[in-house]
């Protein structure tokens, strides 16, 4: 066993850290306050290869592994959770399924520009009336000659207002349940593809999301991803990877709050000495450090298993990804809560970062599978044996 990062993993971690600390961190508060989409940072992430880290070189990606992806996600989310999730959606929810399930033509047309940052993608699974119960969707695609006509709506679509392409999941055969779902690639500008104004949320203000209406939106059969009826399988495979990204995002948010709390506790004086001298604060710090390490252990293991799965098809990581996502997102809430507590009133003030970290953490327990869905997945696997 060897828990040390490889040289390549360390290199990517460092390059992500440098970018995050030099170019992202200083803007994060302003992006959050103004709810401004970070156009310039998305462009830079593309240039640096962060938008398709685990996509092989020949498809325009970074050619690195999923552990490197997780490490980079942690670093960037540490500086700005909004920038982190924009990156995660493009990597995990768009590039990864295109790589695994796309035809050669689809990879050439869509994967290469998405992985290299020339285009940005989004993922359309959730609907106003179906979130956790994803296979029970209202959006339909009906075959009409050589094309499909899509009608329905998708909501909470991160990157939606700015994306060049959406991967959208539609019901193509109601009688087949989950097996009646099919995935399509829909480029922006396709008539009937209508993104709505952005959502207003508790956190990750700079990562715009929106509802997207599909009104007689016609796409050629060539833009169907995978087989007819394979959509749910594609979605579940995709989320197994996406959960590694969100777990990493959660770790990044929590680590940012944690490190600031450690630094502040050494400066802030109360009762004649730094509060870091108080056992009440020391034990909070120990608890936060422990939880962060446990979350990293789970998340890097899930990412490492995903890398093994690339080489060995029998390797599964559904369970490990769900555990990583569940644990990392829940401790992100706990750690940001305690870190804010260390800051006292300053933690509650919007002049400092703590309240942003606290708000940003909350979504990680919800998107890409709520904590409750994670527990359903984990228990089902555990009971199956």
């Amino acid at each position: 066993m060897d828990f040390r990062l490889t040289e390549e993993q360390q290199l990517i971690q460092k390059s992500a850290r440098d970018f995050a600390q030099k170019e992202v961190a200083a803007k994060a508060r302003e992006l959050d306050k103004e709810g401004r989409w970070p156009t310039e940072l998305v462009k830079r992430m593309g240039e640096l290869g962060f938008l398709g880290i685990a996509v092989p070189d020949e498809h325009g990606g970074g050619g690195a592994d999923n552990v490197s992806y997780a490490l980079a996600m942690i670093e960037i989310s540490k500086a700005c959770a909004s920038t982190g999730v924009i990156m995660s959606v493009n990597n995990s929810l768009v590039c990864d399924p295109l790589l695994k399930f796309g035809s050669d033509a689809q990879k050439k047309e869509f994967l290469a520009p998405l992985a290299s940052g020339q285009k940005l993608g989004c993922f359309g699974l959730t609907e106003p009336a179906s979130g956790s119960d994803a296979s029970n969707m209202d959006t339909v695609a009906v075959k009409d000659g050589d094309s499909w006509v899509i009608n329905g709506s998708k909501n909470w679509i991160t990157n939606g207002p700015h994306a060049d392409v959406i991967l959208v999941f539609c019901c193509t055969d109601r009688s087949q349940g989950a097996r009646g779902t099919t995935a399509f690639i829909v480029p922006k500008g396709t008539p009937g593809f209508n993104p709505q104004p952005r959502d207003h949320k508790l956190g990750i203000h700079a990562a715009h999301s929106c509802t997207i209406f599909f009104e007689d939106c016609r796409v050629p059969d060539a833009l169907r991803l995978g087989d007819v009826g394979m959509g749910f399988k594609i979605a579940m495979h995709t989320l197994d990877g996406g959960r590694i990204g969100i777990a990493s995002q959660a770790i990044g948010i929590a680590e940012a709050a944690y490190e600031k709390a450690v630094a502040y506790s050494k400066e802030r004086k109360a009762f004649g000495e730094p509060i870091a001298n108080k056992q009440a604060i020391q034990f909070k710090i120990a608890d936060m450090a422990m939880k962060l390490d446990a979350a990293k252990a789970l998340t890097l293991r899930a990412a490492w298993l995903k890398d093994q799965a690339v080489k060995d098809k029998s390797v599964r990581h559904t369970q490990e990804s769900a555990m990583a996502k569940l644990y990392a997102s829940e401790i992100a809430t706990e750690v940001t809560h305690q870190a804010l507590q260390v800051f006292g009133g300053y933690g509650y003030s919007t002049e400092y970062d703590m309240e942003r970290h606290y708000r940003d953490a909350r979504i990680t327990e919800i998107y890409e599978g709520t904590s409750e869905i994670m527990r359903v997945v984990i228990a089902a696997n555990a009971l199956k044996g």
Partner: protein
Amino acid sequence: MHLEPTPQQLRFRDAARDFATEVLAPNAARFERDERVPDEIFVELGRRGLMAVAVPEALGGSGAGTVAYSLAMTEIARGCGSTAVTMAVTNMVGEVIAAFGDDAQKLHWCPRLAAGELGGFALSEAEAGSDPGGMRTTATLEGDEWVITGTKQWISHGDLSSVLVVWARTDGPGARGLSCFLVPKGAPGLGIAKHEDKMGLRASHTVALSLDGVRVPESALLGPRGAGFRIAMMALDGGRVGIASQALGIATAAYESAVAHLRARKGGGDQALQFRLADMATRLEAGRGLALRAASAKERGDVFSREASIAKAFCTENAWAVCNAAVEVIGDDALLEGHVAERCVRDVRVTMIYEGTSEVQRVVISRLELR
């Protein structure tokens, strides 16, 4: 990065798993009633290379390293927590002697411990637990003999050990005045002051030791004079990996009993119980990652205090939560004598206390984090 054990490490794990499944688990309740794990169990563990897993082969150990040890420890604890603590302490004593002993000490004791004789670790005192610097036992040099006087508290299998590593004050107050000695069984003046009656790990003896002018030759000093505290801290860093692994094993047994219970229910039981199971599985998985990370760091020779303390506090506290949840999931049956979950919930509790309480781990972790 490679997050799976090597084939050799898996062989140790599997040898331990087979022994735990076939011999320990079916007899653990009886061992507890008898308040004794039979000596031959440790001889058998010795034959399988499990009593000195990380001790070099030249000294009769397995030379298999700390990852193999951690994996094996978890499996043995899954079968019987009492057997596991005896194995843990003896492995720790073997490693301490291998690391700090002179050739004569190493060649005399390590092969014996590897073969299944027990080693004891006599550090704690009634007034010096988390703070060994407050120790009162003294050792004074008289001619070419050390004379040791004092009382040691909470000594696992102290009455059954062939050799005891005993800490005593040789020079002045504080941590720097402590030294470490090897005291053989039957040394005149060495007595059992009390057999403790405990909540759990009842098949493992815990005693108070009295040292009433115990005389050992000058050559019984382990490591340099005054190095006692350093030796204790190094031993405990390693010991904490062992206890983290033990806690995981005990909790795994309780978890598996909860899984079996839910599998027998229609539809796998209520969602509320399934959700507890999901949390148990997640905590165990995270704990395994942390314990093996610490083991791997120790094996490489890296500084691993932080990893060991994080693994110890996380694994033992979550193991306790897992055992408690197993009782909740199973219900009344789990509280009947002889039920594995009932034993686990009692056995696991002490893992949060011995070899450094959870509080001491947090002191260690926060000190390193705030540095």
